[in-house]
């Protein structure tokens, strides 16, 4: 294989990795939008809180002398999911639910306020400097031509793919097969009718916040370990990218969020491959503008059904 094709393969691997995490975070935007039509701008912060929780858990376990990799990883994931879900639930309960039924702009502004609040709250509690995430998982496999270009696929990348695939499969099964998942779909289609069938729609809405937060936390743990540094501002860019992915795929559509995340991650990596890497954000957002020009509902989104 030529050097270029090996290089492209390398970027594909990197893009798929980042894209997976965008997809995980994007689910939270798309599910919440699908059911109550609002953009939860504080979602990026929920992701960031997941990363911090994992950081604290890992450091804590290390000081206690726990060093078994699977145990540390699993506990970091579990605590991050629990803490982020609690935040996701609390944000909805405290900041959004009381505003429901009013003008749509108000919860949107509240969400931005919530995002700023959480960012600063973590900044005060944890400091605003970069923290170094312990490198739990290093190494990987290398292939390609040692004389031309060596492609590396790290264990961490493989773990990110595996965890993303498992989470997405679990989500898809939950939504399509389970009784509660069916209720989520019904609520997304016709909230009022679902309510008239005896479904406590507030609880289903809370559930979508919790699911979105849990997936964002998983992404937070993975990306924290992958990049190796965290700070209170990482939620902003990750959130913006994931939101872009959700819109790209068609906001409201779960498969759309998955697809949008992967496309965005790969586009970014490919741009970084051939242009100075500062261009990757420009290209990512230009891609969004382009797709929206030609397909305003996103790749897999359905045109807004007139709700009577």
């Amino acid at each position, binding site marked *: 294989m030529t050097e270029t094709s090996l290089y492209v393969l390398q970027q594909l691997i990197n893009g798929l990795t980042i894209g997976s995490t965008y997809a995980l975070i994007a689910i939270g935007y798309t599910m919440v939008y699908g059911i109550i039509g609002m953009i939860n701008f504080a979602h990026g912060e929920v992701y960031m809180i997941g990363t911090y929780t994992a950081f604290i858990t890992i450091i804590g376990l290390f000081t206690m002398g726990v060093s078994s990799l699977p145990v540390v990883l699993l506990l970091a994931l579990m605590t991050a999911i629990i803490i982020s879900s609690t935040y996701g639930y609390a944000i909805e309960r405290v900041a959004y639910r009381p505003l429901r039924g009013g003008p749509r702009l108000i919860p949107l502004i509240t969400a931005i306020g919530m995002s700023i609040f959480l960012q600063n709250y973590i900044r005060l509690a944890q400091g605003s400097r970069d923290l170094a995430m312990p490198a739990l998982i290093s190494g990987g496999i290398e292939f390609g031509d040692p004389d031309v270009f060596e492609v590396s696929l790290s264990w961490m990348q493989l773990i990110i793919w595996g965890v993303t695939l498992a989470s997405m499969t679990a989500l898809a099964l939950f939504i399509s097969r389970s*009784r509660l998942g*069916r*209720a989520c*779909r*019904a609520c997304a*289609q*016709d909230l*009022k*009718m*679902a*309510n*008239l*069938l*005896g*479904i*406590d*729609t507030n609880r289903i809405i809370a559930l979508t916040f919790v699911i979105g937060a849990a997936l964002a936390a998983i992404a937070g743990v993975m990306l924290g370990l992958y990049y190796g540094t965290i700070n209170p501002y990482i939620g902003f860019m990750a959130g913006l990218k994931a939101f872009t992915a959700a819109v790209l795929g068609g906001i409201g559509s779960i498969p759309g969020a998955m697809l949008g995340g992967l496309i965005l991650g790969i586009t970014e990596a490919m741009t970084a491959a051939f242009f100075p890497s500062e261009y990757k954000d420009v290209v990512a957002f230009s891609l969004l503008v382009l797709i929206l020009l030609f397909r305003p509902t996103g790749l897999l989104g359905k045109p807004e059904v007139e709700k*009577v």
Partner: protein
Amino acid sequence: MLKLDNVSTFYGKIQALHHVSLEINRGEILTLIGANGAGKTTLMMTICGTPRAQSGHIVFDGRPIQQMKTSDIMRQGLAVVPEGRHIFSAMTVEENLLMGSFFRSRNEAAAQLDHVLTLFPRLKERFNQRGGTMSGGEQQMLAIGRALMSQPRLLLLDEPSLGLAPLVIQQIFEIIERLREEGVTIFLVEQNAHQALRIADRGYVLENGSIVMSGSGDALLNDDNVRKAYLGG
């Protein structure tokens, strides 16, 4: 079974129901007729708690329900087929029906599903079809079937014949009478006053948010004012 006492409902500042009192007895078909905009849908939805009655009392089987959350009201033993059907168009017939028995146990739901499918053999044929791709009549049957899935003692029907062909309307009315024989109490809102009054035990006439007349189905059918206003002379 259901009693409304002096119920008033507002949309913002606009009053849509004026001191409505009405009673539904167990086992009967009660119909409510009235012109467009009279407040029929408002009355039916007020029973369900959306919109909420601003004043007055609503009592179902001896229990006041006007303060309850809608989802709790709908678990008391009443179910609604709302105006416009509101089936879940992206979900299959089966899934739509199962949503109707959301708060019932798995066994209850399975038993009731069998029953609903014998009432509506057409739904059985279309079991895996998406709700949105069915004909208007089939969708109406699905909406009624879905409401029945919760095994309601009282069924609220808002203009089930709207926009359907005469033959299908006939079928729907036959189903309604059959449900009554099975012991389900029916509250039927209709603009199709003639047909509604014919199968109803009793009826009320709603005008501009107020009940202006009530009586047995036959009495209303033969009333001069009702004939002029709602039965085309």
